């Protein structure tokens, strides 16, 4: 009996893996339909945070060379725009469940990369952007509901998501920086 069990055990040890996969979930944009006229309402420039990783893996935020460690701070400051600066995102009064009429930031983050950018660096930057947004959502959840974002129910989560929507868009690729 034990021999058979051992045999099966060894089979399962060899044939299976234990690692669970983790990753950053993203939604790709749909391919724009060439027959449908493009949306002419371009997003106002002040609402866009332009993040770029160039072929030398250097980080540029709004065209300026930036340290990787600062990205998270810059992103959250940009989204919140606490002082209503004119070159930071506009706010729109939106009626949200649980919150009522609140000013919601219209910030959009645009992430660009060159062809020669290393994937690891790209993911690190992507991670910082997601982390900045997640932190804001978490803070808001704690302040409003007193519990962490992760433990909110779907409805409340949705409300918090709408408060800090902040889409992270991956720009249409440009073929630059090719070796």
């Amino acid at each position, binding site marked *: 009996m034990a021999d058979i069990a051992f045999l099966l055990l060894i089979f399962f040890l060899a044939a299976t893996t234990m690692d669970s996969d983790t990753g950053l979930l993203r*939604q790709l944009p749909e391919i724009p339909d060439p027959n449908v006229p493009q949306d002419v309402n371009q997003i106002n420039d002040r609402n866009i945070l332009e993040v770029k990783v160039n072929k030398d893996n250097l980080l540029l935020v709004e065209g300026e060379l930036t340290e990787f460690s600062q990205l998270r701070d810059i992103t959250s400051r940009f989204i919140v725009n606490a002082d209503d600066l004119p070159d930071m995102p506009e706010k729109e009064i939106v009626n949200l469940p649980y919150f009522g009429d609140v000013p919601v930031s219209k910030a959009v983050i645009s992430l660009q990369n060159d062809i020669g950018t290393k*994937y690891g660096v790209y993911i690190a930057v992507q991670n910082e952007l997601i982390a900045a947004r997640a932190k804001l959502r978490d803070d808001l959840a704690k302040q409003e509901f007193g519990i962490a974002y992760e433990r909110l129910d779907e409805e409340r989560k949705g409300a918090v998501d709408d408060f800090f929507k902040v889409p992270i868009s991956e720009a249409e690729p440009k073929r630059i920086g090719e070796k």
Partner: protein
Amino acid sequence: MARFVKTGKKSVKAISTSSLPDIVFMILFFFMAVTTMRETDVMVTVRIPEATEGKVLEKKSLASFIYIGEPLETFQAMYGTEPKIQLNDSFKEIVDIQDFIAQEREQLNEADKTKMLVVLKIDRDTRMGVVTDVKQALRRASALKIMYANTNVDQITLHQ
């Protein structure tokens, strides 16, 4: 205190092994429950990048995997050292992705087709050019839900 005085000699009995099958079966069931079947042999070197915000892939049955990286040494004579795309068990090109997605989608049942997720397992030294091409191919195949596989860490160290 006569109770503590040993009388006569004591023989050491062998441990009973009658419960051994039970124990081994217990371990077996543990492994059966915790692990998942290995589905593909990865033929490329994939050193997954690090991140702090990764979410756990919950439904593995909805996921299709795309591997990109340098071919393993045994395949390098045939395929070179440039990053290659691996779908299922073979090296493929960008144009094959659309077919691959269609095929994977076919295997899911009707209700799950919209929930299909493509997991990209890409080596951290890969250039973004090929990644962008794959992303564009996925958009054309309308497989829009993707996951950039990473290992979760507390602090990212950049491998420049």
